[in-house]
C-alpha cells in the first residue's frame, strides 16, 4: 500500500513540474479563464455559436488571415448542410490550375477545396498589412498557451496605452499581447456582422463565437476524442478493478 501511494506520488510529481516549466515570463496580462462549452471531459461545441463564429471569420478575419488546413467540406461538421457548404464554397474564387494555353485560371471553389487564402503568398500578405504577416488561423488556438481564453481576451483587450508607453507607427496597444504592441487593428466593432439568428453582435459576443469556431478548426476531433475517452476510461476503470480482484485471488495464499 505504501509503495503504491509512493508510485502515485512519483507520477504526480513528475507531471507537476511541467505546467510551471512552461509558464513564460512576459509582461502581458494572463487571459482570464472562460467557461467554454467544450471544456471538461464531456465538453461539446455549441453549434449555433460555431456557425455565428464562422460568419465572423468569413466576413472579418478571412480578409487578412488564411486558414490553409481547412476544407469547405469540413463545414458540415458545424451543422451546415451539403447544399449550404456548396454555396459557401462557390462564393469563393480559387486558383484552378491552367487552361489549354497554359494560362493560370480561376474558378469557383468546390467543397473539396481548401479555404481560400486572402493573399497569394506571404509577401503579398505582408505588403498589404504594413509589414506584419497575419498568422494562419487553422491552428491558432493550439499554437497559443490557453489558446481559447487567449484569443478571446486578445479580441477584447485593446486599450488606450497607459501614460508613458510609446506605441509604434501602425501599432495598437493590447493588454494580452506579449509585448503589448500589436500590428492588428481592433478587428471587431459592435455590429460588424449581422447575425441571421438575431443575436446582438457585440464585440464580446462575436469574439466568443469566433473562438468556438477557431477552437473547432484547431481541434476538429475534440468531440469524438472526448466521447471515446469517457468510454475508454470507464472500460479501463472496470478492467483495473477486475485485474485487482484476479491478482488478489491468485496471491491469496502467498502472504
Amino acid at each position, binding site marked *: 500500500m505504501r509503495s503504491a501511494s509512493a508510485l502515485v506520488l512519483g507520477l504526480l510529481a513528475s507531471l507537476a513540474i511541467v505546467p510551471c516549466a512552461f509558464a513564460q515570463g512576459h509582461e502581458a496580462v494572463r487571459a482570464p479563464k472562460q467557461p467554454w462549452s467544450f471544456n471538461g471531459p464531456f465538453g461539446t461545441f455549441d453549434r449555433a455559436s460555431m456557425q455565428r463564429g464562422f460568419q465572423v471569420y468569413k466576413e472579418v478575419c478571412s480578409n487578412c488571415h488564411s486558414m490553409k488546413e481547412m476544407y469547405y467540406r469540413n463545414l458540415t461538421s458545424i451543422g451546415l448542410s451539403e447544399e449550404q457548404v456548396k454555396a459557401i464554397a462557390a462564393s469563393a474564387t480559387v486558383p484552378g490550375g491552367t487552361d489549354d494555353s497554359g494560362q493560370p485560371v480561376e474558378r469557383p471553389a468546390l467543397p473539396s477545396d481548401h479555404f481560400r487564402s486572402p493573399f497569394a503568398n506571404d509577401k503579398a500578405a505582408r505588403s498589404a498589412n504594413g509589414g506584419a504577416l497575419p498568422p494562419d488561423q487553422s491552428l491558432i488556438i493550439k*499554437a497559443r498557451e490557453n489558446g481559447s481564453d487567449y484569443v478571446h481576451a486578445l479580441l477584447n483587450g485593446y486599450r488606450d496605452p497607459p501614460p508613458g508607453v510609446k506605441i509604434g507607427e501602425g501599432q495598437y496597444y493590447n493588454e494580452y499581447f506579449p509585448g503589448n504592441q500589436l500590428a492588428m487593428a481592433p478587428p471587431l466593432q459592435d455590429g460588424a456582422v449581422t447575425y441571421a439568428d438575431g443575436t446582438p453582435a457585440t464585440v464580446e459576443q462575436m469574439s466568443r463565437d469566433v473562438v468556438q469556431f477557431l477552437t473547432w478548426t484547431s481541434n476538429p476531433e475534440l468531440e469524438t476524442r472526448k466521447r471515446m475517452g469517457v468510454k475508454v476510461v470507464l472500460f479501463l476503470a472496470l478492467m483495473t478493478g477486475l485485474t485487482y480482484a484476479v491478482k488478489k485471488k491468485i496471491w491469496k495464499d*502467498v502472504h
Partner: protein
Amino acid sequence: MAGLHKSEFENQVVNWIDTRMPIFTMMQKEYGSFPTPKNFNYFWNFGALAMISLAIMIATGIFLAMNYTAHTSLAFDSVERIMRDVNYGWLLRYIHANGASMFFIVVYIHIFRALYYGSYKAPRELLFMLGVVILLLMMATAFMGYVLPWGQMSYWGATVITNLFSAIPFVGEGIVTWLWGGFSVDNPTLNRFYSLHYLMPFMITGVVFLHIVALHITGSNNPLGIDVKTPQDTLPFHPYYTAKDSIGICVYLLVFAGLVFFAPNFLNHPDNYIPANPLVTPAHIVPEWYFLPYYAILRSVPDKLGGVILMFSSIAVLFVLPWLDTSPVRSSRFRPIYKQLILLLVVSFLVLGYVGGQPPEGIYVVLGRVATAYWFLHFLVLLPILGKLEKPLPLPESIARPVVRRPPPGGGGGPLPQGATAKPMEKS
C-alpha cells in the same frame, strides 16, 4: 552440441516445433516458471511498463510513418492531414506524442527504483549499464522524433541541440555541418532524422533484449536487496507477476488515456503548432519536459564546452555508479543516510526540471547550479565515502523471513504460518 530438444509440451504441433527449436521451453522457463522474488512492490511493475511503452510507440509509429512526409515543405501539413483526414489519425498521433512522455515517466521511475533499492550493484552492474544505454538511445530517438512535425520548437530545438557539438574544439563546426548535411538545419537534416527515428527503436529493442538476458542470468533484485536463498523466497513469474504487472498496466493505461483523450497537448509546447520558420526565433526555446533537467545542467555552466561536458557527464556518471557506491548493502531500507541522500537526488532532479523550463536568469541560475552541484556531489563524493561511514541496519536473514527477530518461544515455524509458504514452494 547438436541434438533435438526433449520437449515436454503435450500439444503435438507445439511439441514438434519445440523439439526442433525450443522457443516454447524457453518462454516457459523465462516467463512461466521463472523464479522471481516474492516480495516485489509496485515499483517492480515499471520494467514491464517500459516494455509496453516501447511496443505502443513502435506500433503507432509504423502507422504514422505510412502517412507522414519527410520534407520541409510538406512535413507540417502531412502531420495536420494525419490529425484531420486519416481515419483515427489524431488518435495515433496523440498516443505516439504522449506515449513518449509516458515512456520517459515510466523509465525515470524505473531508474529511481534501481537507485533506491541498489539494483545496480554486483552482480547486476552490466544489467544496469545496458539500461543506461537504453536511456541514451531513447533520448536520441525522442529528440529526433520531436523534429519531425517541423514546427517552430522542432526546428529551433534541433538547431540548439545539434549546435552543442560545435563546442568540441577544432572539429566541432565540422561535426555540426556533417550532422546537418548542410550549413543549417534543413531538408537533409529532416530526412536523416526521420530515417534514424525509425531505426533507433529497433536498436532499443535489441538492447532491451540484452537487458532481459542479463536480468534472467542475475535474477531480479527485490525491495530488501538481499539475495534469493531458498525456493521459499521466490514465486513463479506466471501467474503471480503476470497478474501483478497487469494491475500496473491498467493504471498506466488509465493515466495514458487521461492524457491522450482529455489533455493531449498538456505536455507539448504551443509553438510547435506554428510551422518552422528559420527567420523567427521563439521567445524561449525549451526542449520537451523530459530533457529539461539536462537542459538546466547545460545552462548552469557559463562556458559552452563546460556545459556540454557536464550535461553528458550527468548521465555518463551512471555507467560507473556500480563502482562509485562502495556500500555492500543494496536496499535503502537498511541504509539510513543513503535513503535521505537518494531522495535529495530526486529533489535535485525535479528542481533541475523546473529550472530548465525557466529563463536562465536570477534565482533560476542559482537554483540550477545548486541542484547541478548536488547531482555530481551525490555520485562522485558522497556515495564513495558513505559506504565507509554509514552503519547499515541489520539485514533480514531471508526474503521468506523478512523480519529480523527471534522465533516466538515454543513456536517452531518462525514469524510466518507454515501454510503461507507451503504452496508457493510446491509450485517453484
